[in-house]
């Protein structure tokens, strides 16, 4: 475990109170064990990056936390709240299928507000603010199936950001975005996180991105998924391009890569 001196003094730092507590989680798919008595905490107000090989169970994990697929055994607790009381933001890995093809892009983005019964005018206002914030220039009057892959993913991200979710799940959210857009959305995510402190779980195959955005990087091993390492990266935000060349960043990144490669080659 990498301990950085940047933590606030006085034992456990304040944001360390667990927002999500996972205990004894087990999950099988047709006799293939994905999780076996898995324990894990997501501290409130942190951004956790999840990094691991294909098929190790990253999507499965956040799907189980969000209550989208049932667990076989074990429990997932939300700091006293019930699952149904929690508002999630979620960018699905298969963003294409998660958008509603009968709604125009703009209505897809505003849909979570509609669910929350926000009045029409306010909905429009908030989506316009978001669009302005992100500097989105694409025509959002179109239907999802009339958009390119990257545009669809962008819509999907906007749909997750328009509400102030209590927990935000991002499952490879930038995989289809172009170079410029990826960098830009990273910054946006950083800004949103800084402003709201929303507990966030980010799945990414880009290690630089994973470390750059994270408070902690969860490294998973292949089946059954185990915590290979849970690495802290405590650099102050906002992090910038300069961060990428700081020795601490490079060290953490290299360490993560080491662990990952060791795990992958083991399997």
């Amino acid at each position, binding site marked *: 475990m990498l301990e950085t001196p940047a933590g606030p003094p006085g034992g456990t730092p304040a944001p360390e109170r667990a927002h999500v507590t996972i205990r004894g989680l087990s999950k099988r798919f047709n006799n293939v064990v994905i999780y076996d008595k898995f324990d894990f905490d997501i501290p409130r107000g942190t951004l956790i990056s999840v990094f691991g090989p294909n098929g190790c169970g990253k999507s499965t994990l956040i799907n189980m936390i969000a209550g*989208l697929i049932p667990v076989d055994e074990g429990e997932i607790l939300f700091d006293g709240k019930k699952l149904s009381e929690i*508002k*999630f933001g979620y960018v699905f890995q298969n963003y294409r*299928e*998660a958008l*509603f*093809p*009968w709604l125009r892009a703009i209505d897809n983005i505003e849909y*979570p507000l509609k669910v*929350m019964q926000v009045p029409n005018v306010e909905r429009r206002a908030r989506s316009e603010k978001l669009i302005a914030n992100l500097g989105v220039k694409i025509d959002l009057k179109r239907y999802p199936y009339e958009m390119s892959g990257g545009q669809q993913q962008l819509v999907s991200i906007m749909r997750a950001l328009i509400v102030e979710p209590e927990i935000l799940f991002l499952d490879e959210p930038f995989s289809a975005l172009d170079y410029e857009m990826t960098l830009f959305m990273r910054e946006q995510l950083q800004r949103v996180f800084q402003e709201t402190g929303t507990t966030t779980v980010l799945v990414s195959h880009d290690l630089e991105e994973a470390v750059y955005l994270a408070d902690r990087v969860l490294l998973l091993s292949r089946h059954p998924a185990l915590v290979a390492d849970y690495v802290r990266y405590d650099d102050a935000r906002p992090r910038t391009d300069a961060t990428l060349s700081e020795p601490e960043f490079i060290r953490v990144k290299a360490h993560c890569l080491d662990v990952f490669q060791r795990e992958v080659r083991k399997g």
Partner: protein
Amino acid sequence: MKRFDPLLPIIGVVGLIVIWSFAVWGQVVDPVLLPSPTKTFWALWKGMNGGALGFDFLKTVQRTAISILIAAAIALPLGIVLGSSERLYRSVEFVIDFFRSTPASAMFPLFLVLFGVGDKTKISVAAFGAMLVILFNVAYGVMNARKTRLLAAKVMGASRLRVLTDVMLLESLPQTFIGLRNGVSLALVIIVVAEMFIGSTDGLGHRVFEAQQLFEMPDMYAAIFAAGALGYGFNLLFLLVERRFVHWSGK
């Protein structure tokens, strides 16, 4: 070529008439039993222009329209609710398949007693039959809906009801329209049969029955043709509505 697309159905009509003409011309069937298309269309023309057929036609349109409205009003919400839980659907599946497989005409006496001797009986039998078909299709549309979208709505905090109306309803729309189109054809068939066999003083079924009794074959086929064309018309109506609203199917 696209410009001519609205004319495509004409091919079907013409094809039908050509086969019909050949059957008549080749004496496959006694000409008394199967009159020529010309004779039939003459009967149709006369009947529709001031003849009784026009009135009967309207009566049947009206009855069918009412019954499909009733059927849809019941079947759409019920189908979505039933379809949203596979176990719920399986528990009532017996009743649905049961009644879909019993001839409506065998049910006439029962409905006669429940709804009286007037139009109500015909309309309710037809509505009942169509309702089952629509219900079946809607429920299936909901059950086969893509799971990811349901999950997306769920995770955004949509209530069960919201998921039903905002996602399942729309996911099942293509299937629902198939159900509606099946349903309206069935309703029309039942209305015509009811007009024939329970008895009625108007309607296309009455006209078919009367022409059959009087052995006026051109009149009979004119009435049958009117019924078939009406069925196509209703189907076309639903098709146009579907085209207008369900733009995303297959995408």
